[in-house]
């Protein structure tokens, strides 16, 4: 019997693009994927945060890319150019996103369009360029979008955010069908409240009673970025080989009630 440990989530010899890698779920994902053996393009608008992420990744050959995903029309060229020097990809994780806490009466067109641009449209633009021969390595492709428990259940002051994340669900399912023949799986992970800087910003607006009420809605408490990173890695690796068009809810039980 071989003494070698069997790791079904090994990502040796695999390469991925992770957006939002400067902080939160994106950073935790990049770290997890590197620990599993992957080589990464880490992208974010935050240069300093990216440098901190790169400094803690395992392995070598990772690439840092400062890019503003609001430049939708440039995403195509940016990804192709990055892959020209880095090499082609086996998958992509779109973890970049912005929150939007605004009751409908003050939700401006400009605000919800900006949220939709970053959270949803850029996801589509990234997924659109991914299958190109200059980008996709051609086998066992996997795209993971980050949606949200807010796309599954309602909450006051969450319309702008919820609509951007609910759109991810529809996109995931249809794209999974369309991309199956290219051997590219498409899935989404829907986190509940995870302790990130985005969460801290929301929490700062709550009073103590609100904070306690929200935490009580999570049977397993608030999540950690690593909880979501584990799910993403599961979907990217061979462990996700037969999974596509799925929304994997990782929320400590928030939506089970």
């Amino acid at each position, binding site marked *: 019997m071989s003494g070698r440990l069997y790791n079904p989530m090994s990502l040796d010899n695999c390469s991925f693009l992770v957006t939002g890698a400067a902080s939160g779920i994106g950073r935790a994902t990049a770290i997890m994927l590197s620990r599993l053996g992957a080589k990464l393009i880490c992208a974010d608008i935050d240069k300093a945060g990216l440098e901190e992420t790169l400094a803690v990744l395992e392995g070598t050959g990772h690439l840092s890319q400062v890019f503003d995903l609001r430049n939708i029309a440039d995403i195509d060229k940016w990804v192709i150019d990055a892959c020209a020097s880095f090499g082609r990809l086996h998958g992509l994780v779109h973890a970049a996103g912005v929150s939007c806490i*605004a009751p409908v009466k003050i939700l401006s067109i400009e605000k919800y369009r900006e949220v939709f641009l970053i959270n949803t449209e850029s996801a589509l633009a990234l997924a659109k360029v991914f299958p190109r021969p200059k980008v996709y390595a051609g086998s066992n492709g996997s795209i993971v979008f980050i949606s949200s428990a807010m796309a599954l259940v309602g909450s006051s002051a969450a319309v702008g955010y919820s609509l951007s994340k609910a759109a991810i669900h529809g996109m995931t399912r249809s794209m999974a069908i369309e991309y199956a023949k290219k051997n590219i799986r498409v899935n989404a992970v829907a986190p509940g409240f995870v302790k990130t800087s985005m969460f801290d910003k929301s929490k700062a607006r709550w009073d103590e009673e609100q904070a306690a009420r929200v935490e009580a809605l999570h049977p397993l408490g608030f999540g950690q970025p690593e909880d979501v990173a584990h799910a993403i890695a599961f979907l990217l690796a061979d462990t996700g080989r037969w999974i596509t068009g799925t929304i994997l809810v990782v929320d400590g039980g928030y939506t089970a009630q």
Partner: protein
Amino acid sequence: MDQFYGKVAEILEVNEVRDGDVLKDFEAWDSLTILSIIAMADSDYKVTLSAKDLDNIKTVGDLKTYFENHEK
């Protein structure tokens, strides 16, 4: 700060507001309105405001002064 009174009036669902108006006396004063004020403070004035801060702000005029003193 030009459009402050107009924005606050819109959030409080009234035609106009004055400095002396007590925030909690408005019919629309509820948790969503509080969130709206906090969101407006952040997006329009770059002012960080919490629900706890708002507890100590009594009138529309107090709110304006708070924004003027904390605007980045």
